[in-house]
């Protein structure tokens, strides 16, 4: 009997300690994929609700199985590779589009560190895949790679609309990376660390949330993130009324689907990033005074993070079905003439605040 | 503190090979943009030696130099591409053999 217990003990320890990084990667990737499914349904239902229509409601109760039906449809459709495309790059592009969207999530903390005793041993759980000391630079670096999928797809398709989509996306991404980076610099100045967990810990009380300390930076960051994820009002690379489908005009079947999944994953990552940097991440105001057991506290914090992220996802959908698309010169005008000076002003004010107050 | 099982000269030879490729690119290619990219390749080969020596000598200055090289590269690319676009507007070519008005 004791022998059996010791085996169980070593197996649990192995699962919880040695396997936990891989487990986290597996769980988060799959969670993201499931969330993408939910989001596609939500987008269609909410858009229908905003436009006073019904939306998809035939598959399953209330249309809940619609994403699965969509997935099956995409899987069994013919995978067309047009004759005039650059074959290798054409196949590469959807993969390149998906990778940056997925790997950004590796450094986002979705819960506090937790140390609990299991079998007389203190085990520390980090609710974050990789705790990099340059975490936020990593995000800036990886976020700027998202454009390659679009450029490569646009070029490989060998189609004038795709080409224009790729061209537009490259200019747009470079322009809006700057205000995003400037907004992040102000946050880093306040937290004094590039580690994302430190930035979250820095926003411990409700009034210390960066959205209250950095209102201008928050607005700049949200607008820049909308442009980086190619969502309306900045979806010029795929503007269907002007460019048919932009960079994914020539794509069909699962390759098209991969582009869509990448777009929605980008959205989730962006929403998680906004809540990490500006809304206190996993922080729940006044949680410590409740005196809950540590596991319950942890659970509440993860739920709070999920709720904040979910709220921003709804904002993404809401904005898409409310605002019209910008013209291209308007987009450049906002990026370079309004957001860049405002971002610099924000940094100067924040630096003065940090230095003198 | 463990030691890396790769000796220093591996990195140096890799950097030398990349630098050589960059030089050959500048000499053989006739497209101004590709020549620019070959120059970037050479700058990056030098950056690799800086980082390797920085690790070897336990000195942070190599990283500072890499930082400065990146600044220069960014400035160079911004101005260089602006010049190439301006030339293209006037002559509709980026072929360096066609741009020889001042060459005698």
């Amino acid at each position, binding site marked *: 009997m004791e022998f059996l217990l010791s085996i169980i003990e070593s197996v649990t320890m192995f699962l919880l300690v040695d396997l936990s990084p891989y487990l986290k990667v597996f769980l988060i990737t799959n969670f993201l994929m499931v969330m993408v499914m939910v989001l596609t349904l939500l987008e269609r239902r909410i858009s229908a609700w905003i436009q006073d229509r019904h939306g998809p409601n035939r598959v399953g109760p209330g249309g809940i199985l619609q994403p699965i039906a969509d997935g099956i449809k995409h899987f069994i459709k013919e995978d067309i590779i047009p004759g005039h495309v650059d074959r290798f*790059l054409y196949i590469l592009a959807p993969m390149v589009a998906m990778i940056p969207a997925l790997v950004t999530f590796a450094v986002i903390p979705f819960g506090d560190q937790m140390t609990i005793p299991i079998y007389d041993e203190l085990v520390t759980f980090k609710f974050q895949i990789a705790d990099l*000391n*340059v975490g936020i*630079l990593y995000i*800036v*670096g990886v976020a700027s790679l998202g454009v390659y999928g679009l*450029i490569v797809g646009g*070029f490989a398709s060998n189609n004038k609309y795709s080409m224009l989509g*790729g*061209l537009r996306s*490259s*200019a747009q991404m470079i322009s809006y*990376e700057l205000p995003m980076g400037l907004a992040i610099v102000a946050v880093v100045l306040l937290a004094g660390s590039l580690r994302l967990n430190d930035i979250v810990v820095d926003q411990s009380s409700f009034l210390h949330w960066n959205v209250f300390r950095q209102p201008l930076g928050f607005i700049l960051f949200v607008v820049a993130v909308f442009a980086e994820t190619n969502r309306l009002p900045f979806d010029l690379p795929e503007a269907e009324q002007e460019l048919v489908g932009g960079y994914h005009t020539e794509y069909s079947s699962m390759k098209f689907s991969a582009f869509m999944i990448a777009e929605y994953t980008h959205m989730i990552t962006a929403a998680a990033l906004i809540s990490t940097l500006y809304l206190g991440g996993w922080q729940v105001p006044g949680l410590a005074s409740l005196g809950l057991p540590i596991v319950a506290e942890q659970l509440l914090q993860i739920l709070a993070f999920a709720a904040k992220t979910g709220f921003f996802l709804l904002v993404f959908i809401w904005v898409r079905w409310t605002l019209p698309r910008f013209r291209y010169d308007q987009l450049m005008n906002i990026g370079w003439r309004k957001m860049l000076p405002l971002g610099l002003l924000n940094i100067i004010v924040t630096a003065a605040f940090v230095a003198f107050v | *503190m*463990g*030691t*890396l*099982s*790769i*000796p220093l*000269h*591996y*990195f*140096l030879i*890799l950097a*030398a090979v*990349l*630098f050589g*490729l*960059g030089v050959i*690119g500048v000499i*053989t290619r006739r*497209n101004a*943009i590709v020549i*620019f*990219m070959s120059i*970037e*390749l050479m700058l990056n080969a030098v950056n690799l030696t800086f*980082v*390797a020596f920085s690790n070897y000598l*336990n000195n942070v200055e190599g*990283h*500072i130099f*890499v*930082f*400065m090289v990146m600044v*220069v*590269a960014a*400035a*160079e690319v911004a101005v260089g*591409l*602006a*010049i*190439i*676009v*301006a030339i*293209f*507007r*006037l002559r509709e070519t*980026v072929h360096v053999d066609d741009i020889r008005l001042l060459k005698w």
Partner: protein
Amino acid sequence: MAIEEILFWFFAVAAVAGGLGVVLHPNPIKSALFLVMTFFALAGEYILLMGHFVAIVHIAVYAGAIMVLFLFVIMLLNVPEETRQGGVWGAMRYVALGLFVFLSFQLSYFGFQDFFGDKQQLVKETEIGTVESIGMSLFSEYVLPFEIASILLITAMVGAIYLSKSKLIIEESKKKKAVEKEDH
């Protein structure tokens, strides 16, 4: 074979293959994509050398900004593929190959001769490449070069904007287009 060695060889082969692609591929867009591959491989080498900050900044600056700018300009200008020259000049590429081998050998042998041999040890873990140490020395000992670098960047920005907004160039190109229209 230790994991570091495998990674080193993987990244080294990727970097050299990317460099060869840049130099040999006639299509400039493919050349640019090969260069992106080289940059990623070099970032891997930097991480092996514990230069985390440099590696991430390298990705953000080179792959994220500079190469996107290159691709934008290539796609904007619609640069055609380079054609290979025939005859004597076509044979020059073998001369170039010989030159490449000679140059690489020269550089690595005469330049780095003193560092050959397995005695030259690199460390696996070090505090040198961290943001803290680079920031400390950048803002104390090297603050003047840092400020000069910022002036250089602003000058480059002004220069790039001036070149693309230059009235002379715009008028000249308009004149040229008008002449072309008359010709047609």
